[in-house]
């Protein structure tokens, strides 16, 4: 019974009264078709109270209307989690803004003696009701979270049912008390529009946004001068206001699209088990190759001989890379004589690593600037940018017991103590030179 009274009778009554009353008032008392300005009487509090209040309530109302008029569109908006969060946050922020503005306006109305003179009991009632309504809204944002999402399944169908003259309370019956009071309060507002200053809702001064700035001034010379400078200040303030609005709206849009990304960037990714394993594997592989590199360096510091390969592993067409005592790359081939042929792989031009595949003319290629080096002589081809030959390295062949079977020094002189068969099982080493030892 109460429900029917509050949610069906009251709305129709309110709307009826609002329409009839407003028409009556605009016809009979057109001059009162706005809220009575009190800028003359008190200016300071008005700025700090009226501005946040109107800014906040305008946006909040627009969002409410959007949610009720285009429920489908609203639903797509709120089904995006980031967007929903932004809407809720913005809505809550704006309602706090409204509350602050309202409180300042209320204090102003209650304390300024000049304004007291023009304040009617209705004005006080309106302020009290507004305070209650905004507080209810803010409380709803806290207690019944995600109102912007669930409204499309509750209050929107209810309103549409009223609009179509088929009142249906089933969707709002189970709402918590806060939400119900919010709705009732809303109907009360519509009801009192024609009887209070709220009538100025129908005279939203949109043209104020576009007209050149004007200011109301007292008609006496001292005041005029004061007000003129105030007028310039007002103009400046208008620019700053626009700046704040523009930057604020831009920041809001950015926050919708990127704030979560920026936050997540610093928050850091949370990987799935599989991704984490993959990443670990890659990291481990890199670390291992670094470890290998360090081991090579250490080995070159410590030992007098470094193994290159078993002689049987070497062949004539494709060389084996190894690292020499200077930590530079070198390649090991098998020469035509069946003995190892060790050649530096650091291009004498700009230090690229030379390839290890031998072409038909017995040459290896540096891919950086196309120099061909003969592996027998080390000489580059005539047109090559590299001019100096690649150096050969000295080597020794040892058997398992570490006795030297054959060797070649830097001058290319070969000493061999055993026959080919015995060599076949030997391993090729590079030896530390006197220079490297010191």
């Amino acid at each position, binding site marked *: 019974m109460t429900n029917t009274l509050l949610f069906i009778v009251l709305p129709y009554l309110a709307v009826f009264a609002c329409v009839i009353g407003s028409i009556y008032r605009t016809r009979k008392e057109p001059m009162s078709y706005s809220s009575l300005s009190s800028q003359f009487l008190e200016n300071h509090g008005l700025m700090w109270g009226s501005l946040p209040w109107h800014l906040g309530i305008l946006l909040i109302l627009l969002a409410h209307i959007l949610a009720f008029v285009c429920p489908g569109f609203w639903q797509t908006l709120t089904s995006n989690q980031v967007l929903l969060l932004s809407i809720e946050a913005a809505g809550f922020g704006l309602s706090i803004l409204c509350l602050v503005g309202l409180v300042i306006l209320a204090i102003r109305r209650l304390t300024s003696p000049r304004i007291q003179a023009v304040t009617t009991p209705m004005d006080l009632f309106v302020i009290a009701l507004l305070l209650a309504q905004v507080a209810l809204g803010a409380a709803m944002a806290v207690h019944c979270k995600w109102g912007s999402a669930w409204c499309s399944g509750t209050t929107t169908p209810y309103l549409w049912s009223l609009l179509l003259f088929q009142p249906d309370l089933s969707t709002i019956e189970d709402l918590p008390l806060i939400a119900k009071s919010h709705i009732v309060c809303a109907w009360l507002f519509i009801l009192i529009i024609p009887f209070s200053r709220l009538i100025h809702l129908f005279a939203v001064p949109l043209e104020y946004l576009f007209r050149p700035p004007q200011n109301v001034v007292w008609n006496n010379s001292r005041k005029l001068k004061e007000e003129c400078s105030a007028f310039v200040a007002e103009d400046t303030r208008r620019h700053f206001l626009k*700046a704040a609005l523009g930057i604020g709206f831009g920041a809001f849009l950015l926050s919708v699209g990127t704030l979560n990304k920026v936050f997540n960037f610093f928050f850091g990714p949370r990987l799935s088990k599989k991704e984490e394993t993959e990443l670990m594997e890659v990291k481990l592989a890199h670390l291992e190759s670094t470890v290998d590199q360090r081991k090579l360096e250490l080995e070159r510091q410590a030992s007098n001989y470094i193994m290159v390969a078993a002689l049987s592993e070497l062949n004539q067409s494709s060389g084996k890379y190894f690292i020499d005592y200077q930590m530079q790359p070198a390649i090991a081939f098998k020469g035509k004589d069946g003995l190892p042929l060790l050649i530096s792989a650091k291009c004498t031009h700009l230090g690229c690593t030379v390839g290890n595949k031998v072409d038909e003319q017995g040459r290896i290629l540096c891919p950086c600037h196309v120099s061909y080096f003969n592996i027998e002589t080390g000489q580059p081809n005539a047109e090559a940018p590299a001019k100096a030959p690649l150096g050969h390295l000295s080597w020794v062949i040892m058997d398992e017991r570490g006795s030297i079977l054959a060797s070649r020094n830097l001058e290319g002189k070969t000493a061999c103590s055993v026959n080919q068969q015995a060599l076949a099982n030997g391993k090729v080493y590079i030896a530390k030179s006197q220079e490297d030892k010191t």
Partner: protein
Amino acid sequence: MSFSNTETVENSKDLKQIDLKLKTNLSLIAFASSLALSFMTANPAQAYPEYQAFVEKNSKRSINCAMCHINEGGPVGNSKGQIGSLSEEELKLLSKARIAFEPGSDVHSPILNEFGNKIISAVGKKKFLEYKTSPEKLAAALGNESDLDTDGIPDAQEYLDGTDPLNKFHGEPVKLFWINLNRCKTHVILTVLAVISINFGLLSLVKGISSIKKK
């Protein structure tokens, strides 16, 4: 530039060899290891440089064996993803992959990367060996459905373009541009609005500052 210049196996010989082995009903492991052994010694390069040559000529981008293989130096050797480094278990997988002649089989060759395995399971080893003489047909055989790196360019197209089919950030720049623009158009629109609005705000700010100073 770094094609392997050693000779490759002739398909008929390869097939015959496998047939023979199958008939003799050797155990799988023996088969696998002997096979691995046989081409490690006799046929050192088992990669298919024809494909690489074709892609490089077609796309004018240089590529290497890592497009389909795990190791950028091809399947032969002792490093990671090369035949010399495989365990018993992996050799089994390898031999299974090597006899996946018909399309549609589940291939997990340890020397191939995801794209390489995809090729074998999509077209089958038999067709793959046939396409060696006309590598451009491989793209058509792969079809346009599969896109392993989800960058919007199908694998087959990436193969033709010589771009990495397994790297989301690698593809023909122009194609990527249109695909990504379409994907993140909401972001772009939001950013356009935001920047316009912030710029408006900044301009007003400048106006405000200059009007203070004018006084």
